[in-house]
C-alpha cells in the first residue's frame, strides 16, 4: 500500500495507548488496530480530524506516502 499510517509513532510520542485513543476518537479498538496496521482501505476525514485532535498533530505526522517499489526501504 502506498500510503502508510504511522499511528504507533505518534501514539508513543504522546504516551497514549490504543484503548485510550480509540475512546477519544470514538471508534472501536478493532478499527483503530486495522488503521494502525495499514490494513484500512480508506479513512474518513472526520476520523482523521478526530485522531489529529486527540494526538495534537497534523495529518502529515501520521500519514506518509511511499511510492511503489520503495516499501520496506529505510
Amino acid at each position, binding site marked *: 500500500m502506498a500510503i502508510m499510517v504511522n499511528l504507533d509513532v505518534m501514539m508513543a510520542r504522546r504516551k497514549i495507548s490504543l484503548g485510550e485513543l480509540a475512546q477519544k476518537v470514538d471508534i472501536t479498538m478493532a478499527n483503530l488496530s486495522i488503521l494502525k496496521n495499514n490494513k*484500512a*482501505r*480508506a479513512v474518513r476525514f472526520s476520523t482523521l480530524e478526530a485522531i489529529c485532535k486527540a494526538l495534537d498533530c497534523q495529518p502529515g505526522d501520521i500519514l506518509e506516502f511511499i511510492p511503489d517499489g520503495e516499501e520496506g526501504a529505510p
Partner: protein
Amino acid sequence: MEKTAVQRLARVLQGMVVVVFTLNLLCLPLVPGAVAFWQEHESIWEWVSHESGDGLFWVTMIFAGAFYGIFLEPSLLTAWSLLFWICGACTAVILWQAKKVLDTILAGSPFRTSNARALNRAAISCWVTSGAAMVKLVLWLWIEKNPAPLCTYTTLFIPGFLMAGLLFQVMSALFRQAAELKEDQDLTI
C-alpha cells in the same frame, strides 16, 4: 434479532429448495427405469390404473430391472439415461448453490465472494445441461431422420438453460463487485 422481509422470504425459499433438492436426489436412481418404461408405455399412471392392483409393485420391479438391464446391455437407452443423469446432477448442483446463497441471506451477509463462486458454478451447470440437451437432440435427429424432435421440450431446454447460465454469470459478477465494495466499506475507518 427480528428478521427482515427478505430474510423471511429467504427462509420460505430455502425450504422449497431443500424439498426440491431432496426430490431431485430421490429421482436420480429412477432415471434408467423411467427411460426404459417410457420407451414401452406412454404413461406410467395409465398403465398402473389399467393393470392389476399390484401395479405399483410391478412398476417398482420394472424400474429396478431396467436399471440393471440398461447397463448390462448398452444401447440407446443407456445414452438417454446418462444424459438425463447429467441433467439431474446439474440441477442438483444448481439447487445446492441456491441453498448456499439463501443461507448467507439468512445469516445477514449475502455480499460475499463465496456467493459469486456459487453462482458461477450454477452457471456452468446450466451450460452443461444445455449441452446435454443439445447432444440428446442431435442424437435423436440422427436416429429419427426427420425434424420431429425439434418440436419437443428438449429443443426448448437448449436456449432456456443457456440463458439461465448467462443470467447466473451476470449475478455472479454482480455479487463479486458487491463483495469488493462491501470490503472497501468495511475497511473504511
